């Protein structure tokens, strides 16, 4: 098994939504591709850029086939130069183009960092010129890909003013948030989770179904404890919540979906309702998104808390390669269960 195929034994299928509408069953990866295709058909200004995304279809084949439909002027294979790429995307955006830039792995976003945090993020504030640009960052671990192909580095950008950051956890959100990201007049970093590419399948509504940036999704309601999370950890939290339910506990799972701006109202509502919160993410713990969520709750839901605000995150180390190391690094259902039980027993 290699990175582009995934390492998953089984594919998880999400249930179809209760209410109707035309949906198709797509993998997370197909949903991203479908979102790009939808936007490219709808808006001729949408252009893809990246290393090996055209003829080759991308390191993970997310853009496969798009160059055949839209041509090399709209699916642009670039030199290996992330900094120039993101700067070029900014320039394109100044002329009405809507660039969608693929980082081959989220890990390489640091190579284009300056362009994002210094230019794109500040431009509208400084002279009022919007920078509508989407950067796709395939991130996170669990694939035995080592320290440079497993990073969850979203907090760098969540901290930086002027950016938006999204992190879909389902095929439907992957498509819907991508549509919103491409339409947004601001730079949006779109963290897609490689682990889910082929391991998660679910119903995806057809047509113009944008998922708004800034709204969390309550994946499961409960009374005793809220698990607040995003990305691949949503499935892990849902698994943990299901186990806890069998043990007689009522646990809710809030999927943040957008990391910047955070849906503070939804976070506080969950915290106030349950009184106990466990925040879960793969990203390194210190100053991660979880710290901000904890700080928001500690300020805004203080009176409702029945226990310490807990965090379960990747430890402050690079993501190691060897399976026994990575398995400890990446929070999974077992670790979530342990932390949740501690908190429930508090």
């Amino acid at each position, binding site marked *: 098994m290699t990175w582009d195929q995934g390492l998953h034994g089984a594919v998880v299928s999400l249930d179809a939504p209760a209410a109707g509408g035309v949906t198709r069953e797509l993998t997370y990866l197909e949903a991203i591709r479908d979102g790009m295709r939808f936007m490219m058909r709808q808006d001729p200004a949408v*252009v893809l850029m990246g290393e090996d995304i055209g003829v080759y279809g991308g390191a993970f084949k997310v853009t496969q086939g798009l160059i055949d439909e839209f041509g090399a*002027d709209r699916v642009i294979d*670039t*030199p290996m*130069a992330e*900094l*120039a*790429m*993101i*700067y*070029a*995307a*900014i*320039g*394109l*955006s*100044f*002329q*009405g*183009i809507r660039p969608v830039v693929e980082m081959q792995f989220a890990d390489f976003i640091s190579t284009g960092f*300056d*362009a994002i945090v*210094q*230019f794109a993020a*500040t*431009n*509208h*504030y*400084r*002279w*009022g*010129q*919007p*920078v*509508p640009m989407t950067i796709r960052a395939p991130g996170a671990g669990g694939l035995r890909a080592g320290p440079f192909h497993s990073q969850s580095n979203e907090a760098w950008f969540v901290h930086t*003013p*002027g950016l*938006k950051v999204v992190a879909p956890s389902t095929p439907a959100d992957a498509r819907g948030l991508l549509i919103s990201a491409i339409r947004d*007049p*601001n730079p949006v970093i779109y963290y897609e989770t490689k682990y889910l590419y082929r391991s998660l399948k679910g119903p995806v509504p057809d047509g113009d179904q944008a998922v708004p940036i800034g709204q969390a999704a309550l994946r499961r309601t409960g009374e005793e404890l809220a698990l607040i999370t995003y990305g691949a950890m949503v499935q892990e939290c849902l698994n943990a919540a299901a186990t806890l339910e069998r043990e007689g506990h009522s646990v809710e799972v809030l999927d943040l979906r957008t990391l910047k701006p955070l849906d503070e109202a939804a976070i506080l509502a969950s915290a106030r309702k349950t009184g106990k919160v466990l925040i879960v993410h793969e990203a390194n713990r210190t100053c991660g998104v979880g710290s901000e969520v904890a700080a928001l709750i500690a300020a805004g839901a203080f009176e409702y808390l029945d226990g310490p605000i807990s965090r379960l995150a990747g430890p402050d180390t690079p993501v190691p390669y060897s399976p026994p190391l990575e398995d400890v690094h990446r929070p999974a259902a077992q670790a979530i269960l342990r932390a949740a039980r501690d908190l429930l027993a508090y």
Partner: protein
Amino acid sequence: MELTDNLLREAHYWMRLTRALDDRGTFLHKQSRIIGGFFSQIGHEAISVAAAMTLERDDVCAPMHRDLGAYLVRGMHPRRILAQFLGRATGVSGGRDANMHGMGDMSLGIIGFISHLPASIGVTAGVAQAFKLKGEPRVALAFFGDGGASQGLAHETLNWAAVFQLPVVFICENNQYAYSTPLTRQMRIEHIADRAAGYGMPGLVVDGNDFGAVYQATYEAVARARAGGGPTLIEGKTMRMRGHAIHDNMAYVPPELLATWSARDPLVRLELLLRERGLLTNTSLEELRTRIEHELDEAQAFAEASPYPEGSSVTERVYAQ
């Protein structure tokens, strides 16, 4: 391409205006009315004005901190520039950005620059890429310095522009120094333009203090770019006649070097040419200077009468709606 009388007269106005506005900034800073930093561009008048004058209205230009002339030629009013220097709400950035930074206005085809040099050459390449993708016969032009030339982005951008054959012209203003760093500590070559060969694009060296030389070289590069002939790198040799910014007394610059370049003042040289052609007299020069001072008095009055932004607006405009 001929340097017509009209062209030279126009150039003279812009170059005089540029220098006068520069002097005005220095004056306002000395009076503590501009606080923080101020960058003088004295010495850069020919290169910034000439390069900008080769562009059409629809073209796009990315000036940096010593390209005051280019902002003016592109149509940015001194009012807005002085209000910017003074941190007023009517300044180009509404008081959000400092001194020459962030003086962008896409309606004038001007990209505002960030400190992180040479960022705007990368953005400019992207603008040119949009022109090419859309099949529009437009050109983008960007300035960068001898210091900026050492940054990785200079390389990535020049290569990018060459690979995609973009309609873009890069003007490297080699003014002998990057802050206190002389050329010999910045690079081990004589001509930055020689790097163009390493990207497969034309590179040429011009006398950056000679309006006509810069104009002609840039004019040809712009025409080639517009015709689909791809990018060009032009290096203009010039000299930064003041400190890096106003606080810098540039004790590190050998006086002889300054003297040499003083004798090559771009404005004096253009005026000599104008006089030779009978287009300038002492009287007409005096008239022009007076007219410009009036314009700047008015601009300054506007700027000083302008309000500061409201403190409470600090969180506004982070995001476009």
